[in-house]
């Protein structure tokens, strides 16, 4: 499937900031399921609406997790910054398996708990309820199904910092909460698990606002990393574009940034993402 | 050097000079209040506090200007960011951060001032009279200044220290001179009276400039002579023109060291040119208070430019 992405993130500052440094993981992962046809990232900013100066490209490398990392810096004063991602990716369905992906981090490192994926009695009970009689792959599927059943999709009830345990208690959440909950469950069952951020092509039946999407990967012995998307009760297929991974949403954030010298003012962020299927 | 280091050096000097001025202010206030006045004790202290920008904090904390409270506020009170204690502590803290950018002698002088201050703070207050305190501060500031002049390498750091001294002194002289306006001008009939002269000479005395003034001018103290002495006379170490010329000198040296001049040099040269062509008559035409307020604003503006160009590290 050929997917085209148009993703614009705009930051606006109530008081102009003196400068900005960002670290991006906005480039599609290279593995059997994805081939990049074209991909372009631009960062620009200035004072007032529209236009302004282009950011300076900084570090550009692939890290141990296999993520392509790009650094950017932009001198101020800035009241507006726009990060634009445009590109086309050829995807194929690998049944959620991360085949042919180069990474150097030992899966064991993904057993580490973070505040957002910490276990709780309720999470443990949910994890223990799933049988591993049919092996780790079936267990992973079972855990994903358990999350889908326990947390209903509902935007607006959870926040960026909501933890897996809080989302489970609410019984509602968005893809980030589903992914966190699944990671927590998998780690409770001693399976390495991680958070994946990316894009999802939503057809007529899907929800457009989930175009900037997130899911989880679980490391299954003998098979390697396999994606699970409890939010859509499936494994990632050709509708998904994988960008980056981490221990949780913060660790896997596609854009991280710090602005200098604007402490007194508010920062606002506006994201627009469109993932379309383009003719081949 | 690091912009932050330059900033620390600059502020060491500003705080030391400020401590010196505040101590002198305390002296002026005490002496002026020793003689009878129609405005009463209170209004004179009010004017002093107002000129130095410390009135609001004082009233909020103490209310009435009683001598003892004023001494506390101006000398010991840490709630007053311009008190002698606050200034000496801040100067020493800035020095501690940049210990390696100064000689042992300079650090010793600053550290000793701080250690002695802590001893003074522990002493019974009734055993410390105002003139002892003022003398102690002027001595400490002279020791630090002397250590800097005698020992410090004449590098860019030396220039930043001196910029701090000159800018602070320019600001402080203008403010001390402005005190006179507050104390005196409300009642024009005092001009030229014995009382007036007493106040002028107290001011000169507080600046340690009484003798220098007489050497330079002789005869009777007049407002015109004083203004000339403290604003336009390059022989006077505290005159505004001396301070601005000093700042100009150190900014020129920085420009030479770094091989580039810019907004800071432009700004200080404009101020100096204006002062050089200034006359006492024109200053009085404008109004002394108005002139001084404008000058204080320009000095603050120069400080901002220096910060932008050198101390903030924001310009590429």
């Amino acid at each position: 499937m050929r997917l085209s992405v148009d993703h614009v993130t705009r930051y606006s500052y109530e008081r102009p900031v003196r400068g900005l440094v960002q670290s991006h993981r906005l480039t599609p992962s290279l593995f059997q399921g994805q081939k990049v046809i074209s991909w372009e990232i631009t960062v620009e900013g200035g004072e007032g609406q529209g236009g302004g100066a282009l950011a300076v490209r900084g570090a550009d490398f692939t890290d141990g997790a296999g993520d392509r990392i790009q650094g950017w810096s932009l001198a101020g004063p800035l009241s507006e910054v726009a990060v634009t991602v445009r590109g086309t990716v050829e995807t194929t369905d690998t049944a959620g398996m991360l085949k042919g992906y180069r990474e150097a981090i030992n899966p064991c490192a993904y057993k580490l708990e973070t505040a957002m994926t910490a276990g709780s009695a309720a999470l443990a009970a949910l994890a223990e309820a799933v049988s591993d009689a049919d092996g780790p792959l079936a267990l992973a599927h079972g855990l994903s199904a358990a999350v889908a059943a326990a947390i209903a999709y509902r935007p607006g009830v959870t926040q960026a910092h909501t933890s897996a345990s809080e989302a489970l208690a609410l019984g509602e959440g968005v893809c980030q909460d589903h992914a966190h909950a699944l990671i927590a469950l998998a780690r409770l069952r001693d399976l390495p698990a991680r958070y994946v951020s990316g894009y999802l092509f939503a057809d007529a039946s899907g929800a457009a606002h989930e175009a900037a999407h997130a899911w989880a990967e679980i490391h299954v012995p003998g098979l390697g990393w396999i994606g699970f998307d409890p939010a859509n009760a499936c494994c990632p297929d050709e509708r998904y574009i994988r960008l980056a991974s981490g221990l949780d949403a913060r660790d896997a954030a596609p854009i991280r940034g710090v602005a200098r010298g604007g402490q007194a003012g508010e920062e606002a962020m506006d994201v627009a993402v469109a993932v379309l299927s383009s003719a081949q | 050097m690091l912009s932050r280091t330059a900033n620390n050096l600059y502020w060491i000097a500003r705080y030391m000079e400020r401590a010196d001025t505040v101590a002198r202010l305390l002296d002026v206030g005490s002496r002026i209040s020793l003689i009878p006045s129609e405005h009463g004790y209170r209004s004179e202290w009010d004017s002093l506090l107002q000129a130095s920008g410390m009135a609001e904090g004082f009233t909020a904390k103490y209310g009435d200007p009683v001598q003892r409270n004023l001494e506390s506020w101006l000398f010991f009170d840490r709630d007053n960011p311009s008190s002698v204690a606050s200034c000496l502590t801040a100067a020493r803290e800035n020095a501690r951060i940049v210990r390696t950018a100064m000689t042992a002698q300079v650090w010793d002088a600053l550290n000793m001032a701080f250690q002695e201050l802590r001893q003074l703070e522990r002493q019974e207050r009734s055993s410390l009279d105002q003139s002892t305190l003022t003398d102690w501060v002027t001595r400490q500031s002279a020791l630090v200044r002397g250590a800097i002049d005698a020992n410090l390498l004449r590098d860019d750091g030396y220039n930043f220290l001196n910029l701090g001294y000159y800018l602070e002194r320019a600001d402080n002289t203008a403010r001390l001179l402005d005190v006179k306006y507050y104390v005196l001008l409300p009642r024009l009939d005092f001009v030229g009276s014995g009382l007036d002269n007493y106040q002028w000479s107290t001011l000169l005395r507080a600046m340690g400039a009484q003798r220098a003034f007489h050497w330079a001018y002789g005869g009777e103290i007049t407002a015109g002579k004083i203004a000339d002495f403290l604003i336009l006379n390059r022989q006077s170490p505290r005159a505004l023109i001396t301070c601005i010329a000093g700042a100009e000198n150190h900014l020129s040296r920085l420009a030479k060291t770094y091989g580039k001049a810019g907004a800071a040099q432009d700004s200080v040269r404009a101020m100096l040119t204006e002062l050089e062509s200034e006359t006492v008559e024109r200053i009085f035409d404008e109004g002394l208070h108005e002139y001084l307020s404008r000058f204080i604003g320009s000095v603050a503006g120069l400080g901002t430019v220096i910060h932008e160009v050198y101390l903030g590290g924001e310009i590429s």
Partner: protein
Amino acid sequence: MGVFFDEMNGSGDRSGGGTRAPYARLEEWLATMPKELRSLKQAEAEALFRRIGITFAVYGEGGDPDRLIPFDMFPRVFSGAEWARLDRGVKQRAKALNMFLVDVYGRGEIIRAGRVPANLVYQNEAYEKAAVGFVPPKGVYSHIVGIDLVRTGPEEFFVLEDNCRTPSGVSYMLENREIMMRMFPGLFRENRIEPIDSYAEILRRTLASVAPAKCKGDPKVVILTPGHFNSAYYEHSFLADLMGVELVEGQDLFVDGEFVYARTTEGPKRVDVIYRRIDDAFLDPLCFRPDSMLGVPGLMDVYRSGGVSICSAPGAGVADDKAIYTYVPDMIRFYLGEEPILKNVPTWKCAERDDLKYVLDNLGELVVKEVHGSGGYGMLVGPKATKAEIEAFRAQLVADPSNYIAQPTLALSTVPTFVDEGVAPRHVDLRPYCLVGERIELVKGGLTRVALREGSLVVNSSQGGGVKDTWVLAE
């Protein structure tokens, strides 16, 4: 606990007593020093320390930043031969620890070989995922390795712990010597004492030798401090001054494009090597703690793309974890194919059931420590503890066994020390500072800490410890 080995008079040495050779001349010195002169000199030393402002706590023990650590004028002396062995042992260990770090952030051979358990490394809090896949210049992660040693006999040295991140206290090593030379120049004429003042120059050279690939020309080195409120700030500024490099805070540095720059009065100046004295977590808010104000946003990206070197490298802490400590002898065998020259203290890992049982049965004789603790806090010294303390500790231990390790109470050697009543033996340890860059170097000296309280085995300055000058005699 029997007799302790005294490094001067040799008591506790089965091969016989008598003043040991390295201390021969000190014996005369001591005999001829009048008591009044002693207290005079002691006061002089203290005044010197105050004057130069060396007031900070060593080893991250916290406490009053204006506190002075007691300086004992009686030096600790090693013969050239004794030192030669320590030198080889320390360098061997520093080398193996660095090879371990390259390995665990690379292929993990030692784990694949089953010599170190995977979970101890990969699930360790100090293991930095972000450090995987980038090998720092010259393959060095830990550029300054502080190795804490204790002695129990003429030939018996044990490593108590390794410090691979940013070991502190080296300014004491240098200042102690400075002050001894000022106060007792005669001693330095009579004894041939190896100098240590090349430390700063070697440190500078070591740091410059690991300049990043993209650095052309003379590398610009800086020391990154958390700031002047930090208890070790004096040491940071002291080292910066000795090396002639800039002492910076996070706010002085910024990332622009592919490099890191310092804000200077002449505009931005590129920085090539950062000797950081702040923890990994605070280095870069974009990579680690987002709330950190101490670090430099974007620093890790520049580091990982070879634009700047960070010393010690992020992630180095996984090698000095107390749980990893027990595997260091195995590392030496695995990577170097050598037998460890310096022994580990026998250690029971409470995470393992058999070990835990032994520890619980013998709490009264053991020292039990927290795996991640430091500064002598959160530990139980069995022989010195009351019954109630032991029982309270037993409860903590049972509740969270994997948080603890236990070691036998070592009969730490003593060195004569000036005390109120005269001169008396006091227990000591030693921290040499090994520098690892293009070469591995060790100056002939280290920091000797001394437990000033009679009978105390705890040398931490927060618990009544002091410091001594440490001499190595020229052969």
